[in-house]
């Protein structure tokens, strides 16, 4: 297909006593070079358009408004999600932390959906409480769950002493480091 004609042309003069050289036709097939060229082009086309950074928006409420908001949460509609170390998730409904149940990031979605189906939309409020060993990735995952399950009202807060203590006890009981 692609070819270059590199055969020695008929430019040589026949000198005396020189044998006539055989004209060897050396045709170089350049198909692989063109293939590589196109491969490199497609590589650069794809990589130059992929450098846009993508972000997730986060809106936080003002700190001074939080106390007023807390009184508006109905006990029946409240779900508290606690996050501990080593990707552990715990949750409980209402106000009683002793009813803590443990879960994983895959199962928590079912729990959230169950809670959502059982409560009227205006009453549902999920509080996310990562403790000091929870990682950023855990928080982003839970925030994702909020978006995936279309939860309209949720807040991020710090666990109080009772909750933290219970989480510690559960972790010790299960031997999680």
């Amino acid at each position, binding site marked *: *297909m*692609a*070819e270059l004609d590199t055969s020695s042309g008929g430019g040589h003069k026949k000198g005396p006593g020189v044998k006539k050289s055989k004209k060897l036709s050396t045709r170089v097939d*350049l198909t692989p*070079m*063109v293939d590589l*060229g*196109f491969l*490199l*082009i497609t590589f*650069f*086309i794809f*990589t*130059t358009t992929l*450098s*846009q*950074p*993508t*972000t*997730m*928006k*986060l*809106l*936080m*409420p*003002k*700190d001074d408004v939080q106390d007023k908001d807390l009184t508006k949460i109905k006990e029946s509609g409240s779900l508290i999600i606690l*996050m501990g170390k080593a990707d552990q998730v715990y949750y409980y409904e209402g106000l009683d932390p002793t009813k803590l149940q443990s879960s994983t990031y895959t199962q928590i*979605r079912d729990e959230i959906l169950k809670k959502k189906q059982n409560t009227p939309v205006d009453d549902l409020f999920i509080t996310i409480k*990562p*403790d*000091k*060993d*929870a*990682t*950023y*990735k*855990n*928080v*982003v*995952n839970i*925030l*994702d769950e909020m*978006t*995936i*399950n*279309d939860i309209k009202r949720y807040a991020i807060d*710090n666990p109080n002493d009772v909750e933290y203590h219970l989480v510690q006890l559960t972790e010790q009981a299960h031997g999680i480091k």
Partner: protein
Amino acid sequence: MARARIKRKGTSIDMTAMCDVAFLLLSFFILTAQFKPAEAVPISIPSSVASKAASLNTDAFVVSVDHDGKAYIELSDPGIRAKVLNKFEQLKGIQLSADLTKKFNNTSLIPVPYASLQQYLELTPEEVKKTPLPGIPLDTTGGELRDWVTAALQAYDNNTNDIHFIIKGDDEAKYPNISNVLTAFKKNDVYKYQLLTTPEGVPPGTELYKKNMQGIKQED
């Protein structure tokens, strides 16, 4: 005798032209490709289903938190850096020398507390690679980061439409560090942030998936 045999002529197409076009295109793309600046601090960001393309027109004040919980500030262009440094110096009442200021405007990263900034700027790039970077001090009231954010806000006349605050956290960074970064922002009355995340596919069958299928625009 019927002439059954038709003379077949070989058809060889001269591909020189196509080869030329291919190489022209290749050179164009090679020259217009911009390399990502080498990251001084390796951070692996989490993925999120709520990820959308960030607008590139506004200036970005990026706070990076690495997996040990150290915070660094990355300012996207030299224009911002000069303004922010200026305001920060006014705030703290300290002044950097002219050539160090110039060097500051050329580095994109602020990885040390203000007290060591001068020393850091005097290092050569090879020395920078070897020194451990302590990060900007953070604490539960925001730490030095709070002052940098104040300086950035003043540099933009408190107009949060012109500057976006982005948090680039590592997957394994512990939440209290992120919480301190958020406190630093909250003390400056900044409540809208963007978390740098890689896009993730929406799990099928969930509410969000159904919403997307119906083409309902997501509320921000």
